[in-house]
């Protein structure tokens, strides 16, 4: 599904990813943990194609395609979804208008028929309930004036609507209280179907109590420093990241 090989990337003149190698099977949920500045968010932006993130070396194959050769919107239509750490406010555009344009762009590219107004609303209502958002969501402007929790739920709603093959969740737990964390996690878990792969990027292991990963990778200084199972996350919770930083430096 996803094969990242020796990925180097920089932002401006600053190298951030320094030889990252990682594979992900269909249906696999992998956590990416790591200290601040280790390159977690950069990885999510490089994979989703944000302009300004320059790949200097290495390859990324997604479903057999060269992901790095694709534009950001092509990647989305091919099935890559990024749940943003800081979802962007888009005043003047309603959720309904935004999502209908997005869903139909993706469906068209995948050879599915475009949804008409009725079909769209039905899908929207289903997914809205999944993440526990209010009925007025459709007419609200995208993320405008949303609370932190509402923004993150809106990301998961979009993910549910767009039905990606690969979902990258960038610090989805940041800024959430425990109730919002539960609601978001339940939404994510409902989208685990044995086919969809997920990269769950997080600083804290707390999220992994709710979204239980198959694999845990630890990112230190732009490289995967260690890979393990669920227990690795718990060990990090105990010991912090410093011992891995020391190992990586050595």
């Amino acid at each position, binding site marked *: 599904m996803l094969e990242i090989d020796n990925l180097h990337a920089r932002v401006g003149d600053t190298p951030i990813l320094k030889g990252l190698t990682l594979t992900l099977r269909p249906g696999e949920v992998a956590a990416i943990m790591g200290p601040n500045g280790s390159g977690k968010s950069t990885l999510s932006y490089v994979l989703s*194609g944000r302009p300004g993130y320059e790949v200097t070396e290495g390859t990324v194959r997604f479903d057999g395609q060269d992901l790095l050769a694709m534009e950001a919107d092509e990647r*989305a239509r091919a099935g890559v*979804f990024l749940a943003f750490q800081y979802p962007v406010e888009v005043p003047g555009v309603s959720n309904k208008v935004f999502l209908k*344009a997005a869903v139909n*762009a993706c469906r068209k590219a995948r050879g599915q028929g475009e949804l008409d107004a009725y079909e769209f609303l039905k899908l929207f209502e289903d997914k809205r309930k999944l993440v526990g958002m209010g009925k007025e969501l459709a007419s609200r402007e995208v993320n405008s004036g949303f609370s932190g929790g509402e923004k993150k739920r809106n990301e998961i709603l979009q993910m549910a609507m767009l039905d990606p093959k690969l979902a990258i969740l960038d610090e989805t737990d940041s800024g959430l209280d425990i109730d919002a964390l539960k609601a978001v996690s339940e939404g994510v878990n409902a989208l685990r179907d044995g086919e969809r792969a997920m990269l769950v990027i997080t600083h804290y292991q707390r999220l992994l109590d709710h979204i239980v990963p198959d694999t845990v990778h630890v990112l230190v200084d732009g490289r995967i420093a260690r890979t393990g199972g669920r227990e690795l996350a718990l060990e990090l919770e105990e010991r912090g990241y410093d011992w891995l930083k020391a190992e990586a430096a050595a």
Partner: protein
Amino acid sequence: MNAMHLMAAELAGASGRAGEPDWLRERRGEGRARFEALGWPTRADEAWRYVKMRELVRWGEASAPPPDAAAVERAMARAGTALDGVAARVVMVDGVVRAEATTRDGSAPEVSVLPLGEALSVVGDHLRSSLGRIASLTGDGVAALALAELGDALVVHVPRGAALSGALEIVHVATGGEAGLRFPRVFVAVDATGELTLIERFIGVPEEAGFTAATTEILVGGDATVRHVRLVDLPEAALHNGHVGVRVGRGGSFTSYVLSLGGRLGRTELTVDLAEPGASCQLDGLYVASGDSHFDHATTIAHTSPHTTSGETYKGVIGDAATGTFFGRVLIREGAVKSDTRQLNHNLLLSTEARVHTRPQLEIDNDDVKAAHGSTVGQLDEMAVFYLRSRGIDERSARGLLTWAFAEEMVVRLPVPALVRELGRVLAARLASDASPVAAAAIEEAL
């Protein structure tokens, strides 16, 4: 001005039209005298600072010759049909009312919508006291010239308490031509507690140039309500200068919607006198300039009485090598205590060559007022563009959708729903471009 011009001008000013009252002939003479005194504006005039005057003065100082029958026919073919929600419609070609194209429903027969010649006997008092004195004799040289060259005009009178069942639409079609100016003129008097929604649409014949200097004068009576939509969507070579002069009486309410969408040069100069206590106005504007167009807006709101309220929001979307200008003055006179004004101008630049000049200006002569103003110039939020693209929306559509989102609020507040839909589609096509059906569909959805 050379001697030939002067002679021609004196002749036009003095001769008048058969059967018209002396005061009207004299009024033209006042316009001529004022033009002689002021001359063409120069770039030293703040409101004309960014206009290339050479492009204007080459058109001369007199009216263009009347269009021939074929030109009138081409113009009439552009006039289209009435929108839903329009109760009465008048077509003017180069400022001359085309009676054969006037349509009107049966509502409020006491409301008169007449060419100047017929209106003199019906609303002579209003005309005599105010024609030319709200806009032309208080404006600049171009406004004065328009009065000096006064020919036909459309006169609208809404008597006390009256209202049409819907909007009055005036379609001004310019035939073009290579020399001389066209001076369309509309005079509106809405008496106490009357109500009027007026749509003025300035269009032209494709591929034609021409220079139109239009004047609209509006008297808003006590507790009367007037909404004025002024839509300029001329062919790309055409030049347009508009003066709108408004006087608002006690408790009266005036709302203006200025839309500059097409033409080589489009200027609108709007002056509102909040002349009596409790008068209010809201001035809204949207300019969408592309190519090498220059759209220029100069507004003056004069709070001359106590307890007067004004609001103003202009938004500009400037692309390519186009220029947008907003110069907005709010004057609060010494006696105008408890006045309240709020003025905003926001601009979105879509290219590195696009230019905008924005200058909100407050001149306050007393302490007991509330006043706020501000302006911004910005570009599309690149993070928002990426956000939309990360959901599968192509870049062009993402930019179109975000540009529409910026302009939208100015379109949806237009007072006639059919006009909101029409302009939404026009802007969808221009902002999102033909290559972006996704954005076009999304805009359609939003309307």
